[in-house]
């Protein structure tokens, strides 16, 4: 199978996954009873007003027809309008996406900058106290609740010490502490991942050969071993987009960042169904496209890998 047809197959399945997600979420949310019109009009609305809303939101149609309307809207890139503010969901998401994206990017860069050296060194000093210490530290970082860690760092580093802005969004500096919070949550996992891969690569004949040829330790570690050890990290990064978005949700809320996470939480509180579905679909799209991108990237950096499905 050549590259193009493989890519098209992947693209097709990504599309199917997304469509399936859209339908799944639509049913799960719409099967829930409870009168949307009441949410929109308030508990005092008259039956006439309710009927009007039912009509204008197609709530009086059978569910499969509403699904049709919904998918038709989606096909036109329209995610509908908020029940609460009447704002376009697409608009709301687009104004917030840059904040979330730059927060996520900041965090990824931060944790890779720490995880890579940690992973390399623990692989080199495997089994020593340093290695064990990092292992426990990594497990600890995996065990931190994002919302709590965010509060603690906000209190200590921003409020007490004044090293960072406490909250709000006024440019890049506002992203530093939230980025550190997220990086904290992921750095341990990635340090271990790189460690495991490094250990494998260091044992490989390729590296043993390099050593036998008399390459210096630094050259072996960073020139020969590390690039190979980093390849699987790319996959995991792609798969972690979902986890990252989960962390973003809490971090944004604590630091009052106007991103997708804050939007998602607000819309759940307001029972704003179009907004909930919009944010859920957005994250699904991000995850699926990240996986697709990783798949392609992976094949590009490591052509030995054979087609999966």
């Amino acid at each position, binding site marked *: 199978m050549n590259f193009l047809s493989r890519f098209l197959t992947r693209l097709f*399945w990504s599309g*199917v*996954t*997304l469509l*399936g*997600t859209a339908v*799944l*979420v639509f049913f*799960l*949310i719409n*099967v*829930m*009873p*409870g009168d949307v019109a009441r949410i929109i009009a308030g508990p005092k609305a008259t039956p006439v007003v309710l009927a009007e809303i039912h009509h204008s939101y197609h709530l009086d149609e059978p569910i499969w027809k509403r699904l049709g309307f919904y998918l038709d809207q989606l096909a036109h890139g329209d995610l509908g309008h908020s029940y609460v503010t009447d704002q376009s969901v697409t608009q709301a998401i687009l104004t917030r996406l840059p904040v979330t994206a730059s927060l996520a990017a900041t965090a990824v860069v931060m944790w890779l900058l720490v995880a890579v050296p940690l992973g390399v060194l623990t692989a080199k000093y*495997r089994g020593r106290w340093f290695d064990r210490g990092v*292992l*426990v530290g990594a*497990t*600890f970082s*995996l*065990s*931190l*609740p*994002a*919302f*709590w860690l965010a*509060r*603690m760092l906000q*209190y200590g580093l921003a*409020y007490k010490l004044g090293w960072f802005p406490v909250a709000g969004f006024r440019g890049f500096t506002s992203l530093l502490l939230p980025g550190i919070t997220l990086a904290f*949550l*992921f750095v341990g*996992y990635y340090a271990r*991942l790189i460690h*495991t891969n490094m*250990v494998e690569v260091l044992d490989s004949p390729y590296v043993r050969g390099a050593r036998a040829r008399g390459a210096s330790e630094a050259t072996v570690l960073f020139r020969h071993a590390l690039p190979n050890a980093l390849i699987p990290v790319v996959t*995991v990064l792609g*798969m*972690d987009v*979902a*986890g*990252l*978005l*989960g*962390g973003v*949700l*809490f971090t944004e809320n604590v630091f009052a960042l106007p991103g997708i996470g804050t939007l*998602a*939480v607000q819309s*759940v*509180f307001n*029972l704003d169904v179009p907004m*909930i579905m919009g*944010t*859920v679909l957005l*994250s*699904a799209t991000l*995850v*699926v496209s990240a*996986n697709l991108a990783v798949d392609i990237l992976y094949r590009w950096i490591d052509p030995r890998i054979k087609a999966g499905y």
Partner: protein
Amino acid sequence: MSDASVEIGLSVAESASPDRRAVPEMFRSRLILTGSGIILLFAVLALAAPLLTQWHILREPLLQNLNGLDAEGMPLSPSGRYLLGTDNLGRDVLSRLVYGARVSLAVGIAAMLTATCIGLTIGLLSGFYGGKLDMGLMRFTDMNLSIPSILLAIAFAGLMDGKILHLHPAWLHWRFLDLKLQRGMVSVFLIIGFVSWTGMVRVIRGQVLSIKERDFVHASRALGASNARLIFRHLLPNVIPTVIVLAAMNTANTIMLEAGLGYLGVGVPPPAPTWGSMIADGQAYFISAPMIVIAPGVAIVLTVLAFNLLGQGLQEVLDPNRAR
């Protein structure tokens, strides 16, 4: 938040039964001992909480007490009377912390069991039968994987507000089929269970794929063993060690999710003390009484850490090749 279990695969045990040497080794693993020690401590405290209250060692966690507030109605800071201080309603934080362990552990473990059942079933079926079933199930898993579990969980939990779901057509008045969507311990653990099984599926499926090509499986099949027998006698016992490791790690995730839902106000509803909601309620008093927020956070970290350590340790013991 990262779904650690995704990448953790175990190499398959060589024989039809799990390694017997693993058991004594467990008692030598410091990771396992530390992890299970902390879990045991919390479990004992959680189980004994009502007794401790009865013996007046702990205060009633729901009791709103004007003596627990100062003259201006602010929570008290830690003192001999209230070891961890009081919360905004004058309730004893220590007591709520201990009672919170009941909720956290119960919901976390129940959700883990739910997730394990789903994940194991799908993984086994998908790996064993392959073909179209495998394809369908894996697509379904992918769809679930593509939504952050916390987002899905808050979406569901948020929509549960006492509405009644009629599982029967309108003309049939089968009230016993009506389902009241109300947030409580059960619905919260079910929600968490339903959003956290995906990590397990791929690992189990991978293992099943490799085990079913083993000689002893082929031999058994040649001797006319039924599919059910193959699954329950050969495949299941061989994936059990992996399931145990994944389950331990998944409990860490489910407890974290429970805390997250509680923090966002869509977990087990008040006045039940949960660690997440304690942090949420305490935030309003954060600058004046930080202990209300710090204490439950430490409890969450310790519990989640314990399950993660346990998982790590189990992995080292049950699968020494992979966990280096």
